[in-house]
Each structure stands twice: as C-alpha cells, then as structure tokens.
C-alpha cells in the first residue's frame, strides 16, 4: 500500500514534498515536477497561491499530480475564499478522489503579487479544519445542510513551532487536532532545541496520539536563499549556527553544505519520538529530493500507483 494514509497506518516514516503549480496554464510544468518525485515520496503538497502569488489552482494542480502517479495533498487557504467557496472546493476534492487536504489560514495578500486584493479570511485555519471534519464525518455543511455524498480525504494542517508565543504553539495545534486535524506539517525546522521542546509539549497535551507530526525541512543552497529565508519568509527562524556553517565554506561549496545540513536534519528528526515523517520543501530543486532521501537513509515507499507515464491531459473525466 502506498500513500500517506498507508504510511501512517503502517507506522512507516512518511516523506512528503512540495509541488508549486506554475504561474500559467501549463500542465507540463506540474507533471515534470511530479515525474521527479514519483516513487520517492508518499505524497506531494500542491500549494494554494503560495506566498499570496497567483498560480494555477491547487485543485487543478492536485488532479494533474495524481494523474502523473503521485499522491497529492491539496492545500487550501482561507485567504482567497469565503466559507462557501472553501466547502465547495472540499467537496470537489472529494469527488475527484484527492486523498489528502491540508488546511491553513494562508499568507496575507500584502506579501504577494496582488497586495491590493481583498483578503477574505472568512474562516480561520482552525475553523476550516473543523468545517472539513464535520463535512466528512457528520456529512453536513456549516449551514447544517446534509451533503449527498461524503468526501474521504485525510485532514491535515500546519503549525509553526518557532513563532511566538512559544509555549502556546503546542496548544494551538491541540486546538486544530480537537477540531479534526489528523496530520500536521511544520514550518522549516532549523532550531532543534525549540522543535524538541514543542514536541515534548505535544506529548504532554496528548496531541501525538491523535495527530501525525511531519517535520518541515529543506536545503538552503545559496547565501541569497539564506538571506531570503531569514528576512522575507514570514515565520521562519534560522539560528546563527546555520548561518555560521553556510558562511564558513567557500562560495562554491555552499550548495553542497546546505544539502548536507538538510540530510542531517532528516536523520536527526527521524530519531525524535513522535516525528512521523518529513516534509521536504525543495522549491525549484525537486530533482535533488531523491539524493537527499538516499543520503539520509530513508527507504523508498513501496511501489506507488502504476507508472503510466501519462500525458497530462489523459484520463480527464476519469479521475479515480
């Protein structure tokens, strides 16, 4: 059995990666990335207008990824849709057989390419998780109206263990889990001390019994990327030690050092009790994912969906 649910059920260390849809009506761009990840990951997140920049929708991206033989995790944010649109997209994902959804509040439009847009935030991330769980398990919309057929996706969410207030972060995830989240992916883990304290808080709160924790990792492959990560990405905390290591090597070795640190991070995370897997964010570096996993000694997931090597448009209207 392949896929995220199967990995969780078997207690196998799960690996997810990220596929950002293109800023154009370009199906090939999605399929190319999926081809690089197929057979190496349990599932791939398809982001929803990441960084508040307009991209192909995550629903379309998820369908394309699924057709290319990779299990999608459809991301859905509260930034661009009110509760009606969110619920209809959740139903659509169910109808198209998208096996996982990842529900989050989303970046504010001020960070993206349309800062003049109206921020919606009709629901917050916790309420969206709650809505999804009620939709699936009770078969009802927020209005109380029953749905004709229930979706079957797994409900995921995100948390940032590194953002203030530090001791509240585990409680915030506990809220999301009580609302219905079954797995969580975290922000990039560079600061292990803070991450381990957060994990300990999760154990204390009993969160780990109900929710699989997938730790976020990713290689920093240049000093420019390091600077960007430090200053421009909301909520990422890069400790000085990471800075020292990357600046301590010759310029032509920064990329390799960044990858090595990522490999070490995966290995270290795999030893932390309660960590059920890693989420490898290697934007624009999808081809490097297999290498990182191989070097970290993470076994490949069992054979995935049959590899059809399909044309991206093939099978439209025959989604699983």
């Amino acid at each position, binding site marked *: 059995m392949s896929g995220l649910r199967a990995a969780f059920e078997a207690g196998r260390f799960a690996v997810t990666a990220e596929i950002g849809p293109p800023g154009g009506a370009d199906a090939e761009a999605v399929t190319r990335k999926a081809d690089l990840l197929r057979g190496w990951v349990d599932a791939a997140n398809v982001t929803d207008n990441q960084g508040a920049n307009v991209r192909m929708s995550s629903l379309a991206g998820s369908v394309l990824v699924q057709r290319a033989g990779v299990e999608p995790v459809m991301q859905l944010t509260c930034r661009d849709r009110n509760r009606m649109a969110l619920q209809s997209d959740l139903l659509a994902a169910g109808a198209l057989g998208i096996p996982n959804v990842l529900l989050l509040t989303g970046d504010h439009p001020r960070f993206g390419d349309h800062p003049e847009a109206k921020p919606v935030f009709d629901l917050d991330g916790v309420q969206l998780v709650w*809505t999804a769980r*009620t939709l699936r398990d009770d078969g009802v919309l927020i209005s109380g109206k029953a749905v004709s057929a229930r979706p079957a996706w797994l409900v995921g969410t995100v948390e*940032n263990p590194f*953002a*203030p207030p530090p001791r509240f972060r585990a409680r*915030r995830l506990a809220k999301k889990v009580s609302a219905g989240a079954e797995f969580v992916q975290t922000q990039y883990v560079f600061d292990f001390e803070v991450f381990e304290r957060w994990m300990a808080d999760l154990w204390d709160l009993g969160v780990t019994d109900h929710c699989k924790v997938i730790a976020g990792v990713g290689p920093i492959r240049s000093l420019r990327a390091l600077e960007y990560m430090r200053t421009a990405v909301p909520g990422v905390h890069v400790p000085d030690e990471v800075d020292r290591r990357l600046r301590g090597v010759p310029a032509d070795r920064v990329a390799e050092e960044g990858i090595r640190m990522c490999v070490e991070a995966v290995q270290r995370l795999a030893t932390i009790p309660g960590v059920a897997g890693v989420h490898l964010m290697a934007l624009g570096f999808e081809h490097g994912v297999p290498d990182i996993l191989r070097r970290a000694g993470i076994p490949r997931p069992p054979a995935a969906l049959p590899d059809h090597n399909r044309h991206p448009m093939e099978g439209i209207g025959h989604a699983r």
Partner: protein
Amino acid sequence: MGFGEQRAGGGGWPRPVVPRIGARLSYGLHRVLAANLLYRRLAAWLERRRPAYRWFTRVERVAKEQLYGCRMCGQCALPDTGYTCPMTCPKQLRNGPCGGVAADGRCEVHPDLVCVWVTAIERGQAAGHGADLDLLQRPVDHREWDRSSWVNYWQGRDDGLGVAYSEDDPRPLLRRELGLSPR
C-alpha cells in the same frame, strides 16, 4: 520585502490594538454586565424600540472602540481572549495567532505593531484566564456586524460561541455547535 517602505496606516486592513484598560479590570466589569433577568428584559425591550437600540449600540460602540479598538462584529470574543479584540488582527483570526508572528512578537502584516494574539495570551494568562484561549471559536456570523454584542449576549445568542472539548474525546464537535442556526 521593504517593510520600511510601507506608508503609515492604510491597507484598510485591521490593525492590532493594545487595549487601554487592563484585563483584570475588564473581567471585573464583565461581572457588572453579566447576563441576568434584568439585563435580558432590557435587551428584549431595546430590540423592540429601534431608536433606543440605536442609541444603546452607539454608546457600546464608543466605549468598546476607545477601550479595545472594537470593530462591532456583534459577537464579542473579548471574555475569551484576555479582553483583547481578535477582530483587530489583519486576518481576523478568532482561534489564536497565525504562523507569521515575528520572533519579537510583531505582526507580519503591520511590523510596527505587536501581534494582537501575543497581547491576548499574555493578558489572559496574567489575569488567570489562560484556559479560555483553548476554546474553539465558531465562525463569525457576518449578519451581526454593527449590532449590539451586549444585547446579543444578554439574549443568550453568544452561548456556545466558544466551544470546549474534553480530555476523553478530543473531538466532540457536533454540527449544531459549528452551525450558526438562522435567527
């Protein structure tokens, strides 16, 4: 990112407000305003008398605007948030801070201001009401904007706005708790 380039104010996005009045005093005032039969009758009377209701709402607006930066969503979450208004969060989050809070506790949208949830959690915990922050807050009913939240509270419409979950079953969330029943 050019945080420095951002002009003052603007955006039309809500701006986090640090309340002008302490949390303990606010909880004290809450006891004065706590729902009882008299207030319920007053609320019912106000709802029958439009001009009176308008005046009452105006007073509530001025008082809460000055003290908490209230935006009159009509479904007050203040008693559950250390008397810090979550509707002044640029994302209007009702269930805690987003993941974008800067290391020094600043708001990601307004880097010159402290995240309203950082303030809320500090105030709630300092006043001995930290556990309220774990309540699940239902989605806002947008029909209630500009209505009196005091009247709504006295009329019992806010009951179950924040829902507790138990230790034994971490997900007892029934649809009637989530659904906003039509009025």
